[in-house]
């Protein structure tokens, strides 16, 4: 290994490889390929959403639901109103779990100058306890609604295998109400941190429905450069490139990097936020040209998803879960060979599934584009911006800035190599 290179280790098996002589940064990914898109071919559609959550243990619910939506699309199945609400609640839990894990255990130690998330308990016990409380309740929601949070067991195409009882929902509401306070402190904590000032100006992309702040029931892909395409046409928007130095593909839009995730969502649908989440968003005055602000965006979103989980639980308790939710089809077979697309906004951004199913109900083709595949391109470009804009600074400082940049993007390498 040449010593003029600096390698910042990132989550999963990846590294940002910096060549100081050339002032150039390259994002290497060397996670082994699992070949999920091949793994599911020849298997029944109902195994798609069993297998693909195993792409990622940090956001398995997002994979589970995107896969379910693809199957429902191919088989023309329509979930009941309660099924959609339960899934939105499950997504809220997923977002809180993922954001909290990243914010408190991975990003915060950088800002506090600590070695690990576990050390926060010694230096800042209040922060640590609110993180544990957010984790506890979001895990509880995911386990209760999904059967199990990490790799759900109760969800299915067409609805759910099992749904919680009214008593269980009431208990869940009681717990979920408690974490509004911790979510609010999270916003204050992450508003108080000093984020590095870098103008990377990434192009931001988010799926939206233009009615509510939405991550499950989305319709279009939009960008801060005026793009508007149907989510079903994701292949027109995202072009994947193979790099010799990476087992993950890189997603580009018209040859340029794409930034997806919390900062992009707040930029493109922040005006649909309600209540306190809306206030926090206005007060934060996020700088959308600065990718480091993604951490602050995740904190604001955490509050939004806690708020939404509370609202959905109220609605479910008030109206009850309709009976159709657990009436699943006897067989998952289309009348003719069909294509299905399923998309959601996962914690880290747009997640897209496309499948083809034959009349026996077996999968014949599968394509999956994950959020981190899109973010890798923008991350590499932003790393270059950091190098270009910090020329006069000490090398140690620049190394620290690059490590924090990678953290800000919250890459999920295991998702990116699937």
């Amino acid at each position, binding site marked *: 290994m040449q010593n003029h290179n600096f390698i910042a280790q990132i989550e999963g098996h990846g590294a940002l490889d910096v060549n100081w002589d050339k002032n150039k940064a390259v994002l290497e990914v060397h996670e082994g390929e699992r070949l999920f898109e091949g793994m599911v071919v020849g298997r029944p559609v109902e195994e798609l959403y069993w297998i693909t959550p195993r792409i990622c243990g940090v956001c398995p619910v997002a994979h589970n639901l995107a896969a379910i939506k693809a199957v429902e699309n191919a088989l023309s199945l329509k979930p009941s109103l309660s099924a959609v609400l339960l899934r939105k609640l499950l997504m809220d839990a997923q977002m809180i779990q993922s954001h909290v894990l990243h914010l408190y255990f991975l990003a915060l130690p950088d800002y506090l100058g600590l070695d690990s998330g576990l050390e926060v308990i010694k230096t800042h016990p209040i922060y640590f306890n609110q993180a544990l409380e957010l984790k506890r309740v979001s895990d509880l929601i995911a386990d209760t609604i999904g059967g*199990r949070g990490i790799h759900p067991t109760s969800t299915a195409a067409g609805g759910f295998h099992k749904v919680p009882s009214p008593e269980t929902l009431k208990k869940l509401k009681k717990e979920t109400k408690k974490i509004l306070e911790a979510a609010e402190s999270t916003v204050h904590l992450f508003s108080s941190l000093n984020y590095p000032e870098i103008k990377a100006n990434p192009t931001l992309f988010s799926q939206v429905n233009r009615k509510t702040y939405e991550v499950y029931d989305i319709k279009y892909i939009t960008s801060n450069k005026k793009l508007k395409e149907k989510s079903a046409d994701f292949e027109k928007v995202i072009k994947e490139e193979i790099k010799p130095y990476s087992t993950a593909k890189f997603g580009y839009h018209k040859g340029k990097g794409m930034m997806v995730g919390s900062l992009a969502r707040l930029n493109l649908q922040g005006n649909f936020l309600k209540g306190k989440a809306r206030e926090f968003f206005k007060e934060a005055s996020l700088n959308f040209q600065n990718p480091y602000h993604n951490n602050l965006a995740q904190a604001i979103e955490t509050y939004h998803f806690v708020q939404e989980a509370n609202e959905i639980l109220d609605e479910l308790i008030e109206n009850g879960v309709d009976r159709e939710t657990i009436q699943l089809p006897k067989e998952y077979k289309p009348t003719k060979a069909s294509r299905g697309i399923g998309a959601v906004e996962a914690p880290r951004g747009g997640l897209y599934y496309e499948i083809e199913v034959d009349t026996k109900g077996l999968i014949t083709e599968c394509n999956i584009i994950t959020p981190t595949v899109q973010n890798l391109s923008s991350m590499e470009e932003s790393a270059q911006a950091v190098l270009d804009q910090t020329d006069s600074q000490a090398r140690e400082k620049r190394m620290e800035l690059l490590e924090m940049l990678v953290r800000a993007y919250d890459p999920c390498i295991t998702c990116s190599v699937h």
Partner: protein
Amino acid sequence: MVSRVELKPKVAIFDFTDCEGCEVAIVSLREKLLELAGETEIVNWRLAQKRADDGPYDIVLIEGTPVTQHEIDTLKFLRGQTKFLIGLGSCATLGGIPGIIDREARTFWYKKIYGEKYKPRGIDALPLTAYVKVDYLIHGCPVEKKEVLRVMAELLAGKVPQGRGYSVCFECKQAGNPCRLLEKKICLGPITQGGCGAICISGGSPCYGCFGIKEGAQIDNLLTTLYKFSDSQDVERYFSMFLKKTPEYARLFSKSKKNAKP
């Protein structure tokens, strides 16, 4: 008073090719993880800390399947660095979900997914035991949190942990689930090691055997029952979910041998 310096056991957690869900399950232990971190010294855990000490270690937990040459070499190296080597989760203990793809099929899928020019890194998704001696396997996809605590408690008490002596059926009955076999649905619960609490069946999903085949399981008897109401392809598919890289799968379904169907 006599003061005594107790050395805490050095624990390291590594991960190979996988989803990281078992590590996330460990983080979800929350307060119990803190207790564990207090009783031991976690000296290397890429996911959760910057500290990354070299060995020797007392206990090494490995998540994931060693699919690249680098991972295989690392695994062999780590075996020499630790007293106890523990597999964490079905990818490590069985080959698991990544094991669905056979070595021979990889070439085809590399071309289809990555194109002709791509130089693949992965060789084959096999369990840790294909390369080194492993002291205990914590099965599960993902691991069950209580099992992780039980195994760690036993290791810290100086015991070598043992598997559960019963199958998933025992816990499934306790959970009050109707029997899938009686409903003519394929189930691998009767031959699968317990410890999971029958969580998948309780949620409405099938049991694909992610806890591994129990010692002394009557596999052939289960097959006789399954073939009464389902065809052999479906049965094989169930076995192929987590168990495809096990010797039992090779014995039952290997193409070179006669199909096990009577």
